[in-house]
């Protein structure tokens, strides 16, 4: 994972609730290798017609939204399937932060592990933000993870919360697994104790 850097970017509005991971990354691209540019598949069926031409109404086909790195969405963004590919698609396209009133739980956790910052802001704040950035295309926003702040186009600053450990990993580009591996002794001790307990689940070696 690459370190997360402060953002100053055009903000892109997605004006719909419950944007599921099937819409973000349709299932027919799930077998593609991670080495592919998943940005090409992002919102594929909303962005492109069957013949591959662009759907002009879709926000990412409009200037200057095309180059946005901050996405602003409605409630329950990223609900549905656990596919991490949805995060890869947003990331590969160039997005580094998504702001919404709520996220699908699995999407939220996948995002943090791939350098995409999910930011939860109150309903009313997001609603106002969506209004502003749709009315004034090209409106810029700032996101700073170190200070946990978002600066909206009108200059208002909003704070957001994030797990300190996830923040640490994002800022330094660290994988959680590296940290867990330093705690293997704790896992081994747990397993030793646990082995004496009843009903600890099926095993294929017994």
């Amino acid at each position, binding site marked *: 994972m690459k370190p997360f850097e402060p953002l100053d970017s055009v903000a892109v509005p997605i004006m719909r609730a*419950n944007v599921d991971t099937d819409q973000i990354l349709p299932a027919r691209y799930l077998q593609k290798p*991670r080495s592919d540019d998943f940005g090409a598949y992002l919102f594929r069926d909303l962005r492109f017609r069957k013949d591959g031409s662009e759907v002009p109404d879709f926000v990412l086909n409009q200037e200057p939204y095309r180059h946005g790195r901050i996405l602003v969405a409605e409630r329950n963004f990223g*609900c549905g399937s*656990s596919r991490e590919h949805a995060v890869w698609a947003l990331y590969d396209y160039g997005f580094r932060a998504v702001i919404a009133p709520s996220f699908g739980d699995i999407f939220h956790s996948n995002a943090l592990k791939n350098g995409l910052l999910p930011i939860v802001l109150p309903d009313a704040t997001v609603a106002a933000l969506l209004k502003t950035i749709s009315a004034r295309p090209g409106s810029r926003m700032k996101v700073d993870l170190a200070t946990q702040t978002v600066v909206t186009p009108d200059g208002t600053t909003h704070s957001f919360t994030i797990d300190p450990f996830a923040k640490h990993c994002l800022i330094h580009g660290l994988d959680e697994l590296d940290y867990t591996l330093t705690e293997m002794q704790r*896992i081994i001790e747990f397993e030793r104790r646990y082995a004496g307990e009843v009903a*600890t689940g099926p095993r294929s070696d017994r």
Partner: protein
Amino acid sequence: MSDTKAPQTLFEKIWSRHRIMERPDGQVLLYIDTHLVQDGSAPAFEMLRRRGIAPRAPHRTFATPDHYVPTDSRDLNTIADPEKRRMAQALMQDSARAGIRFFGLDDPRQGILHVVGPEQGLSWPGTTIVCGDSHTSTHGALGALAFGIGATEVSHVLATQTLWQRKPKTMRIVVDGRLGAGVSAKDIILSIIGKIGAAGAVGHVIEYAGSAVTGLTMEGRLTLCNMSIEAGARAGMIAPDDVTFEYLAGRPFAPAGRDWDEAVAYWRTLPTDPGARFDREVTLNADEIAPMVTWGTSPEDVVPITGRVPDPDTVTDAERRDAIARTLSYMGLKPGMPMTEVPIDHVFIGSCTNGRIEDLRSAAAVVKGRKVAAGVEAWVVPGSGLVKAQAEAEGLDRIFKDAGFQWRHAGCSMCLGTNGDIVAPGKRCASTTNRNFVGRQGPGSRTHLLSPMMAAAAAVTGRLTDVRRLMEGAA
């Protein structure tokens, strides 16, 4: 139970038993008892290989291909797309390399992981179960803490048999009363989602309780927990009881002999203690639940079959009005039209939600002696090879085939179409699956979620139909 101890929920008991350590930020490292892997797991194995790490507990890991397998044959070589074929082959190779128990296409135990797990006795009460698939919540029906994870988390579990989690909030959904004829577990969960919304349980683990829940068979409970994720909850669970133990007893990977007795004694301590507190409580009356059907592109867009498509003009909130209008345009529905006037092109009976033997029996009971309506393409895709064999032993396959259904092999199939089984653009499918998202069953596909009985009713009439009318013989 010591009376000095604070009352605990089922969830809290499982959580604390699997807690290895806590990080300064409050996240807990949980031990994972059982890891299920399917044919979408190739990226996770690849992440591990790049780091030079071998799976830590292959004996706690079980694999079967379901997403990419063909349902018209049992031969991987018939998968035309080389990338899809490679996904199914990768699972076989990764499992063999790591020493993971694998049920392949030549094995009758192959099937959808969330059907195979309970069927093989892999899903035990009180255990933690994860899988790189959001419908892992299914296994909570047996009193397990079971939830879906992403690819990076799959690689973390493979490497360490653990997972970092922030303790979720708890929600209890109590459904009391009796379900009427023609109403099933699918209608309970669709009603719940209609009530609390698709984000209603985000950040929560649901415990389902009440007489209508404990009165369900294990298969009904599996359907209920399966769609917890469609209500926003990563996990849903039901306290283990005699129904659970009778279901599990004698299954291949269930404990046996003295281990069984000890296990049951432990499992009887798991149900939520009286007086335990939940962060949220929701109640429903089962007597009021009708057969449900979705009209839109989120599982929360749901009405009783006796209802109508919503009319955006009657909605005051502008944003909601636009959203409904956009949805109706995608779905090709007229505002205010009765749900029973919606014609259908496809019927799909199957999936981890409704691909079990009781689902097939209930659908077959409606289909028996009737024919699939002209112009409708109707499929049955059993949830596992063993479900298929059982159905054939009972003659259900004949009932379906005589009526004009296609009787296929086990897999995820048309629920999400990863294997190429898709609904054509603009076509409408009455489907026993779990998601009616835009393009879920194929680009441009239109999905109506409903129960197996309701899907069967739609198949024989060619439109969405109140199955209760067929049961009275009125149609």
